[in-house]
């Protein structure tokens, strides 16, 4: 245990995902020895992210205004909607350059072990978006792991009766994996070869 401010910083850093006690300590001492201007910039960035970034009211991607860049873009087609778990998945799919439709970010996947059910995800909002009949195809791009597959099945069962085509990314994605870690080529191909469910 260190005294005062440095231990506070270590504790705060240690609460971040993927940062263990050892890394927290390493980062804290790096900050301590860093140039004051660099530290100010980091602190400002942390604050700005909370002040400026919000969630798109349509698709729940991160945005800096009411709607995100993709929802505002008139060149994107409104008849294909791609469902993902997290905003980082949007970034991964955008990198492939294969997709010209719009997104819906669920904010996670069904995961009973962590107490996450359909009500904790933005599924009601998704159903509301589908209600007006604009969307003709729904692409389920949840992660290719147990929870992502379960979420995809749940949505497929819910949406198919509405007469909307439901597809799932083709395999070739590493099983048990995260979408964000798939390389562009694999993910791009998975998009090309998506199958009906």
């Amino acid at each position, binding site marked *: 245990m260190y005294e005062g401010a440095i231990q506070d910083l270590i504790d705060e850093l240690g609460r971040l995902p993927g940062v263990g006690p050892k890394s927290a300590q390493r980062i804290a001492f790096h900050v301590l020895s860093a140039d004051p201007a660099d530290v100010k910039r980091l602190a400002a960035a942390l604050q700005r992210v909370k002040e400026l970034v919000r969630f798109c009211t349509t698709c729940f991607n991160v945005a800096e205004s009411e709607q995100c860049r993709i929802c505002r873009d008139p060149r994107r087609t409104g008849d294909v909607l791609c469902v993902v778990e997290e905003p980082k998945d949007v970034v991964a799919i955008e990198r492939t350059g294969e997709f010209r439709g719009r997104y819906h970010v669920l904010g996670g996947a*069904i*995961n*009973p*072990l962590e*107490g996450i*059910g*359909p*009500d904790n995800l933005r599924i009601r909002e998704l159903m509301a978006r589908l209600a007006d009949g604009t969307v003709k195809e729904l692409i389920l791009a949840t992660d290719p*792991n*147990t*929870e992502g*597959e*379960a979420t995809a*099945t*749940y949505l497929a*069962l819910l949406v198919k009766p509405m007469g909307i085509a439901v597809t799932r990314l083709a395999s070739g994605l590493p*099983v*048990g994996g995260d979408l964000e870690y798939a390389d562009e080529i694999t993910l791009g191909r998975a998009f090309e070869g998506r199958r009906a469910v």
Partner: protein
Amino acid sequence: MYVSRLELVDFRSYPHLVVEFEAGCSVLVGPNGVGKTNLVEALHYLSTLDSHRVAVDAPLVRAGATTAVIRGEIVHDGRSLLVELAVEPGRANRARLNGAPVRRPREVLGALRMVLFAPEDLALVRGDPAERRRYLDDLLVARQPRYAGVRADYERVLKQRNALLRTAYLARKVGAGARDLSTLDVWDLHLAQHGAELMAARMELCAALGPHVAKAYDAVAAGRGAATVAYRPGVEGGPDRATLAQALSDALTAARPSEVDRGVTLVGPHRDDLTLTLGELPAKGYASHGESWSFALALRLAAYELLRAEGVEPVLALDDVFAELDTGRRDRLAELVGGAAQLLVTCAVPQDVPQRLGGVRYDVAEGALRRAG
């Protein structure tokens, strides 16, 4: 396939060991507690990412050390492959192939194929069904590493489904009223799909194993009576996946009320068994100690023969086997396994190992192996 070189750092009783092996037979000789089993355990861990003795990793790391390293050089089809594993309790294993880190340790499965028989294997016959399911599933993975994924997927679905049932059960117990079970249908579907894939594979495996078990038991057992194995599923159907998935679905529907009532999954291959029969009688509960031991050995030898018949020549390790056998059975066993690409035998008394196996003898002493002769 054979292991040409093994290096251990802080694994079990070994601070640092480097040993070179040749193809064919190697006999590890030494008194009890000197580290013979530790060495074959290290190789087995490299092959399966699992210990045959403990369910957790902590005992594998030498007392006082934090990380154990197992480094094996495996020669297969004239090529040599370096497989390295760092085992650190409480953390994910780290693995390298030919010096390059791999994303998941699972990727090293298949690099070293190995069948081990050890005294602990008596539990295959006398222990819970879980022991026999593990035997089948490990063998599935050894034959086709992709089954590591099938197995993990099934276990994950089962865990999630149990969590859902359990939360609902607990909520009801404290009077919080009905809980949202709307996703149960989804989990049923996935449990049936993954479960059917696992069951179909196990059934096919049992059919392929049958003749090998009978033959091996005949060689190593003293008594009479033929050894047979049969997969005993909880649902009727199969062996094709579609029928099994349907059967599982139906069984889940039928079991739904009692599952909700008890808060746990009651249907699926996690409750199946492999029945072992000697003559007319089940081995479990009827077979003598000697017969049970022979049956367990026969199961491992059958696994070895099956892998061999399918073209991969696994490494075979027999830990403390020959001391348990009389001369006639020793010779028959030697005949059965004599042609192994690599055979590792441990014993306390070298005279127990039949001459005809020949091979190189290593004397094991505190933390070291010395090549004799």
